């Protein structure tokens, strides 16, 4: 593991675009739909290579979700692309009835999730999407952490049958995963440790690794586990880690209510109650700013993960 400055940076949405192109080359059934955000979603490569399998729906997200359900009915594997806000809250009833309840094999791919969308502000910075989507019966929810993992996840979801919510983001972010096979529902150990376990998802995985490095300088051994799949949750990996460290931090770019921390707290309350500190947005909307400024202001900075780890250990 090296310092941020030495790592190549790339946006996770490019991982989606590249993954979609790669899987479409391998699987004729893959089709794409986009609601006037082809460039933002990095779907151009797919569109240019497979124009007959790309459907521009215009600024009409509800129709896009319904059409995806229809395409899935005919045996296609539709990937819908728009911002996370317009992929979830705006079309919740369409997803609930036409996709989830109808059991359609639709992949809802959502970019610009969370605070790191940045300057566009709170109208676009959805922080409730994981909660909305994980509540739907049968919905798989995945929030990969970097370019490489997003590309692998995009290809993996085409190979499983069933509705999926794939969440990724806008900013260029360090690429720190490589050379592993992405497995839906399997937690990934990023760093070993014995004093506290940090469960992180999305962009916050990198911040958690940085936090663990700072904690190590103070003699605290923090384990970092990448929970890319929030549903179904890897109960076994989480319980195994907790049996060892006995306290946890959860870190995510999402509301505290309904996110990864919420899922882990539920699991621990049912199976093995232990202290958990949550690094997440606390019942608030975001605002305009740079990604780093926003993460700091809303309590999602590296120092916040460090402080949460110390609180968790103190409560152990």
């Amino acid at each position, binding site marked *: 593991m090296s310092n941020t400055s030495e790592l190549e940076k790339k946006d996770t949405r490019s991982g989606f675009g590249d993954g979609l192109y790669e899987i479409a080359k391998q699987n004729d059934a893959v089709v794409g739909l986009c609601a006037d955000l082809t460039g933002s979603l990095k779907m151009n490569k797919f569109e240019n290579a497979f124009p007959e399998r790309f459907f521009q729906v215009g600024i009409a997200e509800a129709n896009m979700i319904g*059409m995806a359900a229809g395409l899935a009915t005919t045996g296609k594997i539709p990937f819908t692309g728009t911002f996370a806000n317009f992929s979830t809250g705006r079309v919740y009833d*369409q997803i609930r*009835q036409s996709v989830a309840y109808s059991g359609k094999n639709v992949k809802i791919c959502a970019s610009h999730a969370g605070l790191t969308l940045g300057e566009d502000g709170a109208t676009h910075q959805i922080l409730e999407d994981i909660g909305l989507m994980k509540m739907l019966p049968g919905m798989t929810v995945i929030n990969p952490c970097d370019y490489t993992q997003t590309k692998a996840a995009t290809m993996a979801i085409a190979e499983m049958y069933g509705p999926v919510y794939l969440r990724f983001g806008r900013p260029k972010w360090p690429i720190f995963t490589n050379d592993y096979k992405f497995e839906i529902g399997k937690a990934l150990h990023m760093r070993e440790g014995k004093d506290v376990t940090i469960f992180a998802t999305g962009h916050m995985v990198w911040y958690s690794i940085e936090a663990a490095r700072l904690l190590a300088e103070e003699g605290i051994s923090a384990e970092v586990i990448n929970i890319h799949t929030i549903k179904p949750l890897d109960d076994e990996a989480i319980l195994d880690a907790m049996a060892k460290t006995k306290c946890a931090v959860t870190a995510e770019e999402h509301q505290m209510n309904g996110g990864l921390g919420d899922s882990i707290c539920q699991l621990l309350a049912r199976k093995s109650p232990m202290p958990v500190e949550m690094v997440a947005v606390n019942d608030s909307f975001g605002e305009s700013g740079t990604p780093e400024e926003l993460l700091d202001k809303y309590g999602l900075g590296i120092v916040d993960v460090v402080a949460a780890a110390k609180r968790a250990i103190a409560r152990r």
Partner: protein
Amino acid sequence: MSKSTQELSNYVSQTRRDIVRMVHAVQSGHPGGSLGCVEFFTVLYQNVLRQNASNFSMEGKNEDVFILSNGHISPVYYSTLAHKGYFPVSELASFRKLNTRLQGHPTTHEGLPGIRIASGSLGQGLSVAAGIAQGKKLDKEDKLVYVLMGDGELQEGQVWEAVMYIGHKLDNVIATIDVNGRQIDGDTKDIMGFGDLRSKFEAFGWTVLTMDGNNLEDVQDTLSKAGVLAGNGKPICILMRTEMGNGVDFMMGSHEWHGIAPNDAQLAAALEQNPETLGDY
């Protein structure tokens, strides 16, 4: 082999009986809109759709596909599917009961043959039809996608997103609007009038036909004509005038029977007006 008007009339009478009996048995459901669309469902399923009822497949490859967008008229849908052979007619007795495949609103969730999408929350079916139609284009099929919507349902904004998409990009969709002029709170013209529906659809690039939805010959002729016109560059909209509650005199002419069930005496009167032709379930 097309069925004669007399044969179709027998289906109509039996389907009306099924509808009122199903709704009466559980004292819930939507008889009004169901009765208004009996002739449409009968002609569509008995004489128009190129379908494989005995071996239902979700994908419907090389078949015509029907999507019911206004899912609350499930009684007419279920009765029609059963009499076409998608599932046993006896199963109609389970309508809206615990553990049934015949849920209050249609669903794929319980695996009922003939159903390809859940509907009930209004305004979504035309988008699903657009997706299926796009899939058929991709597969180079010449088969068609039929969809039925209520006129009140056109108040949902998503419908117009789909109308716009289909008008711009597809010609293998035949969308029928059940223009019965009524919705839960009253007459559609008072709740949220549409003005001239024909010009609205035409403005979006659709070919518009009209028919009397309670006249078997007109339904047959218009659906046949729509099938010929489809696939020639423009999608087809059929404005189908119907009478809610058609065939049961005391249910006609009012929105009151949208979603309430007949009592014992009303059931008897309704059955009196519609003789048993194919055998009650």
